[in-house]
């Protein structure tokens, strides 16, 4: 099906008042977006701001709870990706939708409606693809299996596939996230060509530099809502960064301290997968003192996960050294770090924090099975009665709401699961606590409880490294703030009167 081309500059797509709810959570709330023919329209926002949800609604993968979509001024209902494709919408997902067991050619013609024949007319299809590939400068070796292509080449195949299926509006969901700089440059050239042919591109990103470089207009999403649409000539990067993060300084509930006590952790020149911008560490040096909270701010996926894993012994750095409580770490293993009294609140509580199929009491005692209070002969025989009493005491102390401590941990709400983890970790009276997104997905009450506990731990004399993509959380409880970008520490800021402007700019890597 061919889609008639809208006059240059005319509106080609309009999404009005789009709301998408998952259970009680709004992923999109009253979002508006309009896209013109032949423009690069950027959707800017932090992780979890609702960019991907909005695009999945556009592509028919999700049904909006309410709201309307207009394509070429006509109201449409997009119930499946197939319908989206028929309307001329193409999408390059962050995780490529390519069948690895097939060749480039086969992937492009999958679901193809160019002919009604039973058999695949290889020559005719190849010719069509080659014409497209030449027109837009998208080179691709059609007979290569997907598994042998680089990420950049796979992305070209995805774009070629979308064009082959007749897209007029191309959605690129964080297309540069996995690309090298040279590959990204190549992508921008392709985007220019597409634009000059009158195609519209919806570009999703949170990297300020490239947004300023490639966009014609920008719509900012914040916490599921669209904030504003601007032409790129009108605004500067700082303004955008500010709008994206979007807050003014609210007074913190907590007193900020300046610790002068001894260091519990010192990182010196730590590197891990240095060349990977999003999953590596590049020459990171920092220290955490007793009785302070060091907040690591930054957009998700700039090396924060790796930092936490190094500091909990899950990975060993390739260069540099880590000192814990004054002695240099020789071997990196999680148990060694636990014995050195390092507590860990992992970033994914279901994957790494808890064992969902085990009861609350089992989870609470997991780290203490060798303790003589709970077992004879270093874990040979567990004293179930003692474990049960201990669990009941912690349930009360940490206000863990569950029908019984024998309930499976996975049945608990997110907040109560996090309290189970907190109880287990804090009961060891740690010297260093690494807390990663400790309040992600929690309601205000539970988040407040977690913050109170972390502060109390700090006042007891524990050093806390707080990693969070939630900027409010960082501002709320950090005594010192470090900003991470592409595996590097961009700067250090005081937690007492933080310079929001400067921090936003550092987070955007400028």
């Amino acid at each position, binding site marked *: 099906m061919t889609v008639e081309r809208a006059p240059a500059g005319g509106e080609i797509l309009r999404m009005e008042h789009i709301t998408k709810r998952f259970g009680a959570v709004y992923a999109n709330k009253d979002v508006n977006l309009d896209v013109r023919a032949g423009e690069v329209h950027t959707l800017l926002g932090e992780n979890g701001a609702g960019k991907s949800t909005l695009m999945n609604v556009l592509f028919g993968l999700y049904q909006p709870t309410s709201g309307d979509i207009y394509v070429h001024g006509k109201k449409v209902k997009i119930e*499946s990706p197939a319908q989206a494709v028929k309307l001329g919408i193409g999408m390059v997902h962050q995780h490529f939708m390519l069948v690895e067991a097939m060749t480039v050619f086969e992937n492009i013609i999958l679901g193809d409606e160019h002919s009604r024949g039973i*058999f695949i007319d290889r020559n005719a299809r190849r010719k069509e693809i080659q014409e497209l590939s030449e027109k837009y400068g998208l080179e691709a070796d059609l007979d290569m299996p997907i598994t042998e292509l680089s990420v950049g080449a796979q992305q070209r195949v995805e774009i070629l596939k979308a064009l082959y299926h007749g897209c007029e509006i191309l959605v690129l969901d964080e297309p540069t996230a996995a690309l090298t700089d040279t590959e990204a440059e190549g992508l921008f050239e392709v985007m220019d060509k597409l634009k000059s042919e009158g195609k519209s591109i919806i570009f999703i990103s949170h990297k300020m530099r490239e947004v300023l470089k490639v966009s014609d207009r920008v719509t900012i999403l914040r916490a599921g809502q669209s904030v504003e649409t601007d032409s790129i000539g009108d605004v500067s990067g700082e303004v955008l960064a500010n709008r994206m993060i979007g807050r003014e300084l609210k007074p913190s509930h907590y007193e900020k301290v300046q610790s002068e006590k001894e260091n519990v952790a010192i990182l010196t020149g730590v590197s891990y997968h240095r060349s990977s911008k999003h999953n590596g560490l590049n020459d990171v040096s920092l220290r955490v003192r007793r009785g302070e909270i060091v907040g690591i701010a930054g957009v998700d996926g700039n090396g924060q996960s790796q930092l936490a894993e190094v500091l909990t012994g899950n990975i060993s750095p390739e260069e540099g050294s880590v000192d814990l409580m004054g002695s240099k770490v020789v071997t990196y293993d999680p148990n060694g770090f636990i014995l050195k009294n390092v507590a860990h609140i992992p970033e994914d509580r279901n994957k790494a924090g808890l064992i969902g199929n085990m009861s609350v009491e089992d989870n609470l005692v997991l780290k203490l099975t060798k303790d003589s209070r709970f077992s004879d002969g270093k874990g040979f025989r567990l004293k179930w009665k003692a474990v049960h009493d201990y669990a009941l005491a912690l349930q009360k102390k940490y206000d863990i709401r569950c029908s019984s401590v024998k309930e499976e941990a996975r049945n608990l709400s997110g907040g109560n699961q996090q309290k189970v983890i907190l109880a287990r970790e804090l009961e060891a009276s740690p010297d260093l606590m690494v807390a990663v997104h400790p309040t992600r997905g929690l309601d205000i009450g539970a988040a407040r409880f977690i913050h109170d506990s972390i502060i109390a731990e700090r006042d007891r004399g524990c050093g806390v490294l707080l990693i969070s993509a939630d900027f409010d959380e960082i501002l709320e409880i950090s005594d010192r703030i470090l900003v991470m970008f592409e595996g590097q520490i961009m700067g250090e800021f005081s937690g007492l009167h933080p310079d929001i402007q400067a921090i936003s700019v550092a987070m955007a890597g400028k």
Partner: protein
Amino acid sequence: MSSFIANLILATVRMASPLIFLALAELYEERAGLVNIGIEGIAAIGSLVGFMISLISGRPGLGVLAGAGVGILVNMIYAYATISLCAEQIVYGMAINIFAPALAAFIYRVYFGSGSELVQANLMITLKQALGIQSDNFFVNLFLDQTPMVYIAFLLVIFTGIFFTKTRAGLNYKAVGEYPKAAATLGINVIGTKYLACVICGALAGMGGAYLTTCYSRTYVDGNIAGRGFIALAAVIFGRWSAPGVLIACLFFGFCDALQIRLQLVNSSLPYQFFQMIPYLATIIVLAAMGIRKAGPKSAGQPYRKEER
């Protein structure tokens, strides 16, 4: 050519044919991302129903069709549970394996009573018999002294091979087994394809079962599938999920089966059970050698859910 070898080759073709039906059934299923270990059970019920209809109507061909029909019906249980309810595929395959043969045994008892005398039905006639050819030449026997089911089996292999490698529909079908989400974004009907796979699988597995009571043996006995449904699973792995590969695998397993029968006939000093082990031993050896490299459809065994966060 010695009669031993000639008979061995003829028996290989006869023994491979039911395996081809069963293995193709599994191939269509796995290519759509469904692992169905219930082939054995579907074949069992197909074998009984095929036998009964063939006996009642006197037409083995009708029996085969009935076997296909009941195979589809039984496999719809598996289809609904695994596709629509996203249930565990292995569990439901196992359920079919327990349920269907038991149902077959039950129906047989109810219908024929539990007397010790086995009821006998007509076998399908071979092309040679139909044409009234008298020659006993080896090649005449090989190519003409076969039931229509054997020709259908081999034609199905050719059809399947072309379908998966040359046709648009076949390419789309394979995408469902590899990466259903990607297939869906290209407008391919994932759920529909999976149900289609279950219809094809049920029909072929039912026919494979019916083969044993309409073309191979005049009687129905419990357990007559004798693990062929599982050997078919091995044949799909051995055949690297391709139609020609599956054919070669089935011929190999068919050969092992034929060999053990022939050896039983010529050797009386060893207990016959030793020879009966041959096909199963071969299966284990092949799986041990070939099963290491996982090359099957990527999404096989995993449920497909539509709106997933």
